[in-house]
């Protein structure tokens, strides 16, 4: 029986890949005041950033209820008896806890394994896609689970920020709070380490920040996949994608948009690179 993969929308997986690999994505709720949008379903990235710019209300996110997760499990269980749920880092959202508890709430009888990706954006996405590909190619659940656990420490990400204000307001700033309140205009480079936001570097200009992202990917010796994503600056992301593609001609580079659920916390002009691979 083919293993099916479920994840939340914070992995920023491009819709084509979701379609192609048969991944089920549970949308996070993005809330502007009293209006609830389902991440990527009712609200695209462009619409979200337009609203963010025009709305006086500061948006928030909320993980769907246990019931929604359980419903998603039941629906997938119609096709398979083996489900792997790979969630956003438990340090960044309640997705993992909800996914675990939802196992008890589902109606159908089905084996469901829940794994914390300890990651987010396309780093989470690359882990999910690798699992989905293995599943599509016929790997059994234990094998896919093993692969996923192997991949979790191999998924790395760096994001160039313009401002850390959104991260601070959303309470996701973690150790990057040491980068807050700088008098100088700098581009902080953050990533995920041990499941939480981590301050990696500070560059004194946008150009240098983008160079950092390139060199970050360039530093890997073995690469299974690369993701490049932007919030509001597609040209920068396209150019970076091209450079990385020339550098790694045989590697698949996924080009994605920051999802609204992530956008609430990272704000505009974020540019991210995710790599699934090894550095030594």
């Amino acid at each position, binding site marked *: 029986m083919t293993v099916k993969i479920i994840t939340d929308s914070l992995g920023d997986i491009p819709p084509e890949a979701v379609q192609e690999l048969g991944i089920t994505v549970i949308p996070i709720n993005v809330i502007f005041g009293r209006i609830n949008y389902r991440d990527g379903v009712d609200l695209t990235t462009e619409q979200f950033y337009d609203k963010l710019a025009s709305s006086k209300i500061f948006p928030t996110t909320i993980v769907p209820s246990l019931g929604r997760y359980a419903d998603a499990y039941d629906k997938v269980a119609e096709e398979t008896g083996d489900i792997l749920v790979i969630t956003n880092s438990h340090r960044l959202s309640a997705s993992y806890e909800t996914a675990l508890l939802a196992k008890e709430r589902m109606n159908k009888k089905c084996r469901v394994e829940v794994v914390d990706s300890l990651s987010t954006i396309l780093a989470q996405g690359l882990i999910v896609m690798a699992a989905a590909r293995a599943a599509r190619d016929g790997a059994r659940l234990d094998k896919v689970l093993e692969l996923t656990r192997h991949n979790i420490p191999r998924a790395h990400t760096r994001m160039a920020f313009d401002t850390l204000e959104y991260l601070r307001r959303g309470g996701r700033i973690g150790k990057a709070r*040491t*980068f807050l309140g700088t*008098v100088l205009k*700098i581009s902080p480079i953050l990533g995920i*380490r041990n499941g939480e936001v981590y*301050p990696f570097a500070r*560059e*004194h200009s946008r*150009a*240098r920040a983008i160079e950092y992202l390139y060199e970050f990917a360039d530093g890997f010796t073995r690469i299974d996949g690369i993701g490049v994503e932007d919030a509001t600056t597609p040209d920068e992301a396209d150019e970076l994608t091209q450079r990385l593609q020339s550098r790694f001609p045989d590697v698949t580079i996924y080009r994605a948009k920051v999802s609204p659920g992530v956008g609430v916390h990272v704000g505009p002009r974020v540019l991210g690179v995710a790599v699934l691979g090894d550095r030594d």
Partner: protein
Amino acid sequence: MAEARAISGKDLRDMFVAATGWLEKSAADVDALNVFPVPDGDTGTNMLLTMRSSIEESYQAANSASGVARAIAKGALIGARGNSGVILSQIWNGMAQGLDEKDTMTGADLVTALLKASKTAYNGLSNPVEGTILTVIREAAEAAEKHAAEVSNDLISVMEATVDAARESVANTPTLLPVLKECGVVDAGGQGLYTILEGALHYLKGETEQLELRRPWMVASSIPLTTKVPQMVGAMDEVPYGYCTNFVIKGAEIDPDKLRKRLEKRGESVIVIGDDSAVRVHIHTLDPGEIMHYVNPLGTLHQINIRNMDEQYRDFLEMQKERMPGVDTAIVAVVAGEGLSQVFTSLGATIIVPGGQTMNPSTKDLLQAVEAVPSEKVIILPNNKNIVLTAEQVPSLTGKKINVVPTKTIPQGVAALLAFDYEADLETNAVSMYQAHSEVRSIEVTRAVRATRLGGLDIKKRQAIGFLDGDLVAVADKVDEVLNQALERVNPDEAEVVTIYYGADTKLAEAEQVAAAVRERYPQLQVEVVQGGQPHYNYIASVE
């Protein structure tokens, strides 16, 4: 050489101005010598600041030798900094007494003044220590007396003998003071006094060229370095700290000697100097209130400065624990100016030690900062070429692991700090910060303190001068011109970001104009204007 030549009060003042200029040239070297009573590396600076205060006051004085000498003593009393400054002010106080009612100063008057200076210096201290500036003034005065009696009492001749004796005395200080011997250095205060006397001699001999073009010699120790620098030197053992209490009492009929004796029962490191109308007090006490209460009836209190050395330390630890969770390498940065301090703090410097071009912090200041941070690993950013050496003394004085990234300018410090990686260990950080500090170009713009010729450029007093990475590259009347000239040297077409920190004496509007001009000339540059608030420099700019 005319016998019994005399100089006027105006000459005496000019002699002090020249001597101060001479000291200024080697103040940093003198700083680096300092190990007694505490290894705080600011003796040269403290003496220089004390001398500057004297000079300032001397311009208010009547033109008689006694008037100028009195003003110099008064200026030193009010402006005295540190132990060495306080003792120096005692020396000038004695000199003024020696020149009392003299319209001019002859060789014989100089002898009297020096002898009185020596006596007064010893009297000011509750516990005079040989092998210090005290020994130097005493031996110099004795030599002057002998020379005048046996060879010549010509002013220049006496001064020559004085300077020669002072030099020998300085070289000999390590044999008298073990801590100097252990460190292989001469006494810093002694060296400072010798330098002042030597500067005065150059002036008397009309050697203006020497004064302009040469630098003072640093006297070498008469005995070679035998052992390594000790873990901790002298008075550093004096813990707990209590309160470091400083103030000036102005009143009538104050008896400094009586006051000193009384205060000695109430605290440690007591220094009381001055005359019956104004007295400066320095004391380490556990109860500053009691001290204040005690001295209050004597007159009005001024320049009161009380620092709780214990509490500062504890508060600091608490604050740091909250601020820097989980960061195991701390950063100590030397920065002057509120704006720049904010820049460094906001970029993650754990503690700022105030200081810079005109105010070099001591090794002790740096050591205390290092000891205060709640990390066992510390990186020091000196941010000034005159502080690098001081910073490099710190690793041998503490059990903590220290790395000094030898940043010589503020932009280098910022670049290094930006490269700090929270994930990396001390060595890795030191390497990447060192790398980063060398990738930025630093421009510093200030105004010339006096006319001079430097790096092939003629500089008039008050003209704007620009340094690129510490080298003088531009001179012009306007500061923005100088900034532009310096910028041209960097090849700004290849740069991306220019950050302009404007100084305490520069207005934002002015800085914005300068920035706008730069943007217009180099449209591809990202130009940022930041309030630095630094003294001395109108602009500090980084080019990356």
